[in-house]
């Protein structure tokens, strides 16, 4: 009996051995001793399988890091770091597939289709920890911008994914460094900074410094 997992594994095995997608669901199903109908019970196409694999990575990472004892004590920054480390540790064992799947995507600025469900999960997670961070005042609540925090994190994610694909260092240590630095810089920008104070000072001056009158507003 086919399962989501068995189909995913068979699919990964096929593309890695053959270097391309199976010619048809029929051939793929036949090779794996199931009927075409069985395949369609789980997935509508090969693309959907690939989408599912990536989404699976994210879900598995989240389940794993949330089960860690330290999780509850983490700040938002640490939760984000934890996701990144966990994710890249997890996909290490599927690196060949990841490389195959990513290299096949057309270059461009839009998110490749294969990442859409992954992105949804990621953004859901990012949104959650951002809200937590803003609530605990770890992060600065800025009009308009704070809604964009999760986008910035996604940009980081795509960047580090590409970094990892090209990382040749032993144990992908460079990727660890890229994560540590990249996420910390991103969160530094989210935190209250001199720029916030500058804005507030400007606001104060406009309201109380009589600038409005002098400038003829």
């Amino acid at each position, binding site marked *: 009996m086919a399962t989501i997992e068995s189909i995913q594994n068979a699919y990964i095995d096929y593309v890695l051995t053959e270097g391309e997608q199976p010619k048809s669901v029929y051939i793929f199903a036949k090779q794996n001793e199931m009927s075409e109908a069985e395949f369609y019970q789980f997935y509508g196409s090969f693309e959907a399988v690939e989408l599912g694999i990536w989404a699976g990575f994210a879900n598995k990472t989240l389940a794993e890091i949330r089960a860690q004892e*330290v999780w509850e004590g983490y700040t938002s920054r640490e939760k984000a770091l934890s996701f990144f480390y966990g994710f890249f*540790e997890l996909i290490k064992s599927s690196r060949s597939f990841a490389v195959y799947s990513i290299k096949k995507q057309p270059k461009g600025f839009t998110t490749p289709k294969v990442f859409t469900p992954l992105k949804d999960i990621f953004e859901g997670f990012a949104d959650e920890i951002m809200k937590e961070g803003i609530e605990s005042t770890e992060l600065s609540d800025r009009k308009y911008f704070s809604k964009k925090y999760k986008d910035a994190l996604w940009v980081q994610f795509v960047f580090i994914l590409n970094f990892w694909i090209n990382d040749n260092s032993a144990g992908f240590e460079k990727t660890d460094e890229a994560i540590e630095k990249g996420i910390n810089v991103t969160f530094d920008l989210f935190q209250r900074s001199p720029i916030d104070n500058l804005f507030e000072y400007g606001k104060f001056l406009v309201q109380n410094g009589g600038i409005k009158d002098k400038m003829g507003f």
Partner: protein
Amino acid sequence: MADETPGATPEQNSIPTTKVQRSAKFVKTGIKIGGNYIKHYSKKLFNPDLDKSELNEDNAADIYQSLSELKGSALKVAQMLSMDKNLLPQAYVDKFTQSQYNAPPLSGPLIVQTFRKYFGKNPDQIFDKFNIRSTNAASIGQVHQAELNGKKLAVKIQYPGVGDSISSDLKLVKPFAFRMLGMSEKELDVYMKEVEERLLEETDYELEVRRSVEFSNACANLDNVVFPNYYPELSSKRIITMDWLEGKHLKEFLATKPSQQLRDQIGQALWDFYNFQQHELRAVHADPHPGNFMITPEGKLGVIDFGCIKEMPEDFYYPFFSLTSTNLLDNKEETIKAFRQLDMIHRDDTPAQIEFYYTQYKEMISLFALPYITDTFDFSQTAFFDQLYGFGERISKMPEFKQARGVKHFIYVNRTNFGLYNILHELKAKVKTDTFKPHVVLEY
């Protein structure tokens, strides 16, 4: 970032790791130092009496800051330079000594990640308790407290990518070392290589565990010296697990105003620990900075770091330590032979040069050997140290010493012994110095 004061940055936000970033950091420091000079000379225009200590202080602050942001091997070099008090103006020293205590920590998730990488498990799955916040920073790692089967443990974790960056780091430090020590870059090379070798060894935690076990066994019989147990099965390339030693660091210990007797006891333990290794094992714990020692509540010396071991080959050991015996040092001909062996006098030196270096080095060695000559030595006397620093300062100004002399082994052996002297001086300890005597030969 760059304008924050050192010590006021508890969380490190980013470590510049690529060579380009690190270079940028150093270039920035270079520019700042240039600025400090301009500041100095413009002030001097109006106040001709101004001395250079403010300038030195400004420079040291900027160098320190750039080093501490770099972390890793650069910080190690800062620590090393700070040990050689006799080679550096006081202002540099004060700033550099800060680096022995404060280096900002890395994130909790990176700790977890390191464990997963080497053990496939989270730290809380390996230990009964694990404190994700580090308690101490070492220059290439940080220390966490853990507990297993009711035993308190110290877990040292190394920063990722340290080994990779050491060589490129040293290349970057070189121009600064050269400027600070007044030596030429080319001549520094031999020494830098020696430093690089030791530093690379220090990043190998598997080697460190092996050595720690070896050395703590070999030194087990020394009075008042204790070592933690090491757990190789809980250690890996970037993790070391050992017993947690309760105790105080030197500074905290001294703040409790310990009795003379207790200070002597700790001093004696230090002396025995070092001289037993030098003269019996011929390999020595070459990192005598105060952060590597703990003073336990029972008044014993705890040694917690065997990252840096300097082995002394015979062709260095005998000529050098034989000079510490007056019998040889009084014999001019044999002394010069020993100096030649140690490359302190070169083959093509003129007779006048030979005479000059002979006099200088003889003075240096007799100063160094002073504690060995008598049976006991009182390290509290400032006169000895003033003489030592005075000598260091004097030769650092002599053009004859701008060129490199002496075999590379001197770096770590000097660092070890002067480091030891310095700690004993801070302890104001009176020490029996005839416990482990150097082995000497009287002729060459």
